[in-house]
């Protein structure tokens, strides 16, 4: 009995020592590594896969020019992966130092006090100045008058068309449709449903926030607005809104537009779509994955007016980060005029510096020039509000009802406006919770 007890005890001791060694082995190395570095910045960014190498190269250049600062980049392929991670990080106080976020996230994070206000840094360094940056973009990075993100790229959603498809249908590739009426006619001509070829394909269907966002361009083209004058109600079921939805539903009914139950994957690249909605970020993707696709860009067709959805990406510093100075250095480097222009071209986005538009490729390539035109002359930046994601997703299922032809546009929009207004009012929505221009 005694020997057995001693053996048991021996086993217990051995087990404890082993466990202790394993734990030490896991915890020590990163701890030691951290202690040796001067400053390490954690940088979380959404990066399209085609662009990852360029971002890494630029980060490496920053490290070379700033010995003593190391940057740990984490790339996320999708915003939907990055956003929950940022939120959990803020809640658990394990935030990264620098994040690349969209304008709607800037609003939501600043609203919750999670971002560092950058005005002091900008004033001290003399850059960036509001006058040097496209005004609509600067405003999109502000919250209640303070700058919370260093504007990085403008993404512009316009209208792409396949020049080969145009030629095959006997249309002039130099004359894309300009008005909604033109558009409906052209879409019909380019469609061939039995071969799964469609005249027009919207950006995406589904219930994601983007589905509401791309439809907004049409609402604005018809002269409508999301909110009513005092921002107390959602007003998308106005006559303009109904007109904007009918325009698309009519195209679906006439079989000129990709129906919602047909996935768009692969159809654009294989030339089955005549015209489609996307933005400059598709340039690098097509160059890599569809080199034979011959396309041109154009402003989205107008109804009452032209309107193209504009968004903004920024680099922001998290308030809880303990390396604010180093983070600011990193922001200034990545978004300096030169570097911004270089990286923007790789991303397929527009740089934010006004002077950059007079440089190639933005000034020379016809596809880029359309984006610049849209940004400078017909921009409508996406509205930023509290809980924009949830608000949009109260609306998108009703839009789906209309696209699936289950409800008329008027019924669908009435239901959407009702749901959205109820939600908006339940969160105390008013003018102070929106940045709409």
């Amino acid at each position, binding site marked *: *009995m005694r020997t057995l*007890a001693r053996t*048991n005890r021996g086993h*217990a001791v051995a087990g404890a020592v082993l466990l202790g060694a394993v734990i030490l082995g896991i915890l020590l190395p990163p701890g030691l590594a951290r202690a040796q570095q001067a400053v390490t910045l954690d940088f979380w960014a959404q990066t399209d896969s085609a662009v990852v190498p360029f971002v890494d190269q630029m980060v490496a250049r920053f490290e070379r020019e700033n010995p003593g600062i190391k940057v740990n980049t984490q790339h996320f392929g999708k915003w*939907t992966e990055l*956003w*929950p991670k940022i*939120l*959990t990080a*803020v*809640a658990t106080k394990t935030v990264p130092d620098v994040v690349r976020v969209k304008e709607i996230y800037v609003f939501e*994070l600043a609203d*919750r*006090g*999670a971002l560092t206000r950058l005005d002091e840094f900008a004033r001290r360094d003399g850059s960036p100045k509001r006058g040097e940056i496209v005004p609509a973009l600067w405003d999109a990075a502000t919250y209640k008058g303070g700058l919370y993100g260093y504007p990085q790229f403008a993404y512009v959603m316009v209208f792409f068309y396949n020049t080969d498809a145009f030629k095959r249908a006997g249309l002039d590739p130099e004359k894309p449709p300009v008005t909604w009426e033109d558009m409906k006619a052209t879409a019909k001509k380019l469609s061939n449903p039995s071969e*799964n070829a469609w005249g027009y394909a919207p950006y995406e*269907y*589904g*219930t*994601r926030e983007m589905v509401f966002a791309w439809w907004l361009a049409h609402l604005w083209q018809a002269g409508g607005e999301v909110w009513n004058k005092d921002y107390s109600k959602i007003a998308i079921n106005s006559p303009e809104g109904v007109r904007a939805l009918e325009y698309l539903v009519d195209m679906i009914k006439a079989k000129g537009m990709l129906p*919602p*139950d*047909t*996935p768009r*994957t*692969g*159809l654009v690249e294989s030339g089955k779509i005549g015209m489609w909605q996307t933005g400059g970020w598709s340039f690098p993707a097509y160059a890599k994955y569809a080199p034979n696709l011959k396309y041109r860009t154009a402003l989205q067709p107008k109804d009452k007016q032209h309107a193209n959805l504009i968004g903004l990406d920024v680099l922001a510093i998290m308030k809880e980060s303990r390396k604010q100075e180093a983070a600011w250095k990193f922001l200034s480097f990545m978004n300096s005029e030169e570097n911004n222009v270089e990286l923007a071209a790789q991303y397929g986005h527009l740089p934010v510096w006004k002077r950059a538009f007079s440089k190639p490729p933005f000034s020379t390539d016809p596809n880029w020039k359309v984006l610049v035109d849209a940004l400078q002359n017909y921009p409508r930046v996406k509205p930023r509000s509290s*809980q924009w*994601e*949830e608000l949009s*997703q109260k609306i998108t*299922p009703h839009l*789906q*009802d209309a696209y*699936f032809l*289950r409800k008329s546009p008027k019924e669908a929009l009435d239901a959407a406006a009702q749901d959205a207004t109820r939600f908006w009012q339940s969160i105390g929505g008013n003018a102070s919770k929106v940045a709409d221009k």
Partner: protein
Amino acid sequence: MAPLSPEIAVASGWHRQAYRRVLVGYAFILPWVIGFLLFKAYPIGASFYISLHQWDLLKPPIYVEFENYVRLSRDPLFWTSLLNTLYYALCVPLRLVLALALAMLLNRSWPGINAARALLYLPSATPVAVIAVVWTLMYHPTFGAVNTIFGYAAIRGPKWIASPEWAMPALIFMSLWYVGPMMVIFLAGLKGIPSVLYEAAAIDGASAWNQFKNITLPVVSPVILLNLVMDIILAFQVFASIYIMTGGGPMNRTLVLALYIYQHAFVWLNMGYASALAWGLFLLTFGLTLAQMRVSKRWVFYQ
């Protein structure tokens, strides 16, 4: 091993040894207990506490009593997701039948039967994300493998996960991929049936179907109950494959409860409401399990 008399017990230190043995026993289960308390019991308790609040992770929580539960009962999407979850759970009987059938097939001692067992189990060892992505490609209405094969038989396949009507059936069919673990458990159960029963039945002239109905099924019925209960719990919690393949669409037709909870928690930051939804799911699963155990007394045969 109790000693012969109390005097010997005290003299030989038996009580002390027994006490120590009990301590050692507790020490051995301590890691599991700590893990359970930290990673299961505490989060479950915390989740109930959170469900009584409104919390967006970034601002402090606001106590709202049972408001979240009231909201839950009035939320049309909650009922939609509940119905969708029950619809998806139709995959459970399909999986049970398939698992049992495969197990019976594999309950032989043919040469290469071990390789066959491994091969049939292999699909379940593949990560869900991989399966989901591959099936998304296969279900593509134009370029996907499924419709291409249908095309060879001159059938025009439906739009599968892009169509509101066919999305859930498509997901249910895909879930048959994961019968591996159930099949293995059934196999173990089948091996516990003494072959003398079959021999006796064969001598008495029982047909194969009769043998199955009156020998196999009753003896294996506890295993069926086990697999049924576990699989229903799993089916109610399905998330990853649906999140990747349809995201709940089209038109919220594949929005199951677990996915709806995820949306409220991590897309819209309604932690309180999401916790209330989670408790709704828990109570539903718990209630259903209890009901199954009650009903099982009627059809499960214990030897």
